[in-house]
């Protein structure tokens, strides 16, 4: 018996779903085994996880709130992944965004909301974008791998945030806790519930940034010349040179925009969820965003869906943490396991595997690609 591996000519259709569900099931199985290893009831754990994530309307709302920063960061990451620029610095760009927004909120507390809010957004996007541009410039100028430089900037960005929160920006009234003073009301994004007269939990108006960014992302990629040039650059610098694609400009653009989106997410998190800056604003959304972007194969709608799914997973893990005393790291394990299984599973999307006897009589069923 020989395994025949061949590149697929046609896409799998509904088989895609099967592959993804299979990968997901495998990842869940791994997690269940780990639960069992830690001496916890495995199946019950998974049930608690899912009930926690999807069981009540407030958990869904909570997931939606968490999905906002994940979605924004994932869009930014996906933009650069499209042209094979591996920006894994969303976490640091997020931190800088939060710092930028906080700087504005603390410096101009007297401004009306209509001026303060846009200024905070702007500062956050500029700070995040600038943080993203550093690896881009290093790569273009010197050929420094953007993978490691953007990752190192994550650590540095978070430490910058901590430096400020532990130092210059610390609220004297915080009893020594590392946090800034609360933003003035004009600098806080309001919850949606009271305005709409609905009970929407912690869901806030920052949600609106998501459809705006998502539509802009998909229009940019599918309808504009620059968006097309971006996709073509994904084949590498040689093609870009042949077709005179503005490769360098695009690298700066995707890293700047990606950083800007992550920065925006940082602004929304500090302004809407915490109302101030403190180290807990860093919840690893920037890393989850990478998982989301890849799982969704960089497409906008799947990114939205997957962001929500992984946000729900985080909510579920929180419940699990409470009920079974499972360490929070369980969420990370799940993300890692799902990503690994899906990468492996994606093999079946582009290749077909057939078992073949060593001396077959008839032609193989699948179509060949080579003559």
């Amino acid at each position, binding site marked *: 018996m020989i395994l*025949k*591996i*061949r590149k697929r000519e046609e896409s799998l259709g509904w088989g895609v779903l099967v592959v993804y569900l299979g990968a997901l099931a495998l990842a869940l199985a791994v997690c269940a085994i*780990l639960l069992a*290893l*830690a001496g916890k009831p495995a199946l019950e754990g998974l049930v608690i996880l899912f009930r926690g994530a999807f069981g009540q309307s407030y958990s869904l709302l909570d997931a939606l709130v968490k999905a906002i920063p994940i979605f924004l960061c994932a869009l930014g990451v996906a933009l650069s992944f499209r042209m094979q620029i*591996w920006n*894994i610095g969303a976490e640091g760009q997020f931190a800088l965004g939060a710092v930028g927004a906080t700087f504005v909120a603390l410096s101009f507390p007297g401004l009306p909301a209509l001026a303060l809010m846009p200024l905070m957004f702007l500062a956050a996007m500029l700070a995040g974008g600038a943080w993203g541009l550093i690896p881009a410039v*290093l790569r273009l100028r*010197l*050929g*420094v*791998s953007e*993978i*490691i*430089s953007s*990752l*190192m*900037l994550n*650590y*540095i960005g978070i*430490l*910058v945030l*901590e*430096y400020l929160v*532990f*130092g210059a920006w610390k609220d004297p009234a915080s009893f020594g806790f590392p946090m800034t003073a609360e933003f003035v009301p004009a600098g806080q994004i309001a919850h949606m519930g009271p305005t709409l007269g609905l009970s929407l939990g912690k869901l806030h108006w920052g949600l609106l940034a998501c459809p705006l960014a998502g539509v802009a992302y998909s229009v940019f990629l599918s309808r504009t010349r620059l968006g097309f040039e971006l996709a073509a650059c994904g084949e590498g610098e040689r093609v870009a040179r042949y077709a005179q694609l503005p490769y360098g400009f695009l690298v700066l653009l995707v890293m700047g925009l990606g950083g800007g989106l992550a920065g925006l997410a940082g602004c929304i998190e500090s302004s809407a969820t915490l109302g101030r800056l403190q180290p807990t604003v860093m919840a690893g959304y920037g*890393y989850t965003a*990478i*998982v989301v972007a*890849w799982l969704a194969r960089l497409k906008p709608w799947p990114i939205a869906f997957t962001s929500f799914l992984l946000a729900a997973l985080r909510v579920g893990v929180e419940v699990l943490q409470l009920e079974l005393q*499972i*360490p*929070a*790291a*369980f*969420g*990370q*394990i*799940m*993300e*890692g*396991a799902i*990503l*690994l299984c899906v*990468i*492996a*599973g*994606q*093999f079946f999307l582009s*290749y077909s595997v057939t078992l073949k006897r060593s001396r077959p009589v008839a032609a193989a069923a699948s179509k060949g690609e*080579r003559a």
Partner: protein
Amino acid sequence: MSPELIIALLAAAVQGAAPILFATLGEMLSEKAGVLNLGVEGVMALSAFAAFIVCHLTGSAVLGLFAGGFAGALLCGLHALVCQVFLGNQVVSGLALTIFGVGLSDFLGTPYVGVGTEGFRQFAVPLLSHLPMLGPVLFRQDAMVYLVYCAPVAVWFLLNRTSLGLGLRATGEMPAAAAAAGLNPQRLRAFGVMAGGFLCGLGGAYLSLAHTHLWSTGLSGGRGWVAVALVIFAFWRPGRAVIGALLFGGVMAFQLRLQAEGTNVPSSLLLMLPYALTVIVLVFSAARAKYLKTGHSAAPAALGVNIEPEG
């Protein structure tokens, strides 16, 4: 600064360099075979726990050491599986490995936070430890530091003086040529990744068995990423990796010493040092490669490129 302080700092630099050097050499082995492994951080985290728990349960530091190595090889085997068999993207698979490894280490290790282990203790090498300067710096260390002295030589020997190393390098440069010569590039790559994982695992084991004798989460603290950067700095040569690792060990020792002495420099700025240094080192290597025009020939030609099936 007094001579005693300098010697203490240098000795601490050697200890700080040890785990990074193990990991750098491990990553180098993997990259020489053509596989980029961004999972080093996760591998170090997990193997630190594996080493700790085995040492904790059996009381044997040597068993712990091997447990760390094997845990590293095993986790990297997962990377090899995803990239060699399922042709997954090496960058993303490595990231996933880091997320998974760090998470798993925290998950399994949470109940043991604060638990101590015996691990490896320092012992002075007879005669050599009495050398002026060098003695106290190099030869009053723990067993794993002595092990790390051998590692660069061993990796260099493996790569340049054995048939296995020749095959590994050929696979990293041009898998088709290795295949035409009758070698199995997939198997060679899997070996490179897993042997590299073993070394990274030793780096992780060092953290829990010799660096601290107390388990806590987040032990790896970015050292895995530093290792990935140092491979570039070292131009894929084991000898230069030693210089890079010592540089980082020195900075870390310096930073720890400053913190211990209670300076008024905020700790976040001190903690930033190694990460900022990594970026600087990368910029330096890139600029140097650009100046010498050797950068691209130093990297294995098929690094990061998966072997597509034929037929």
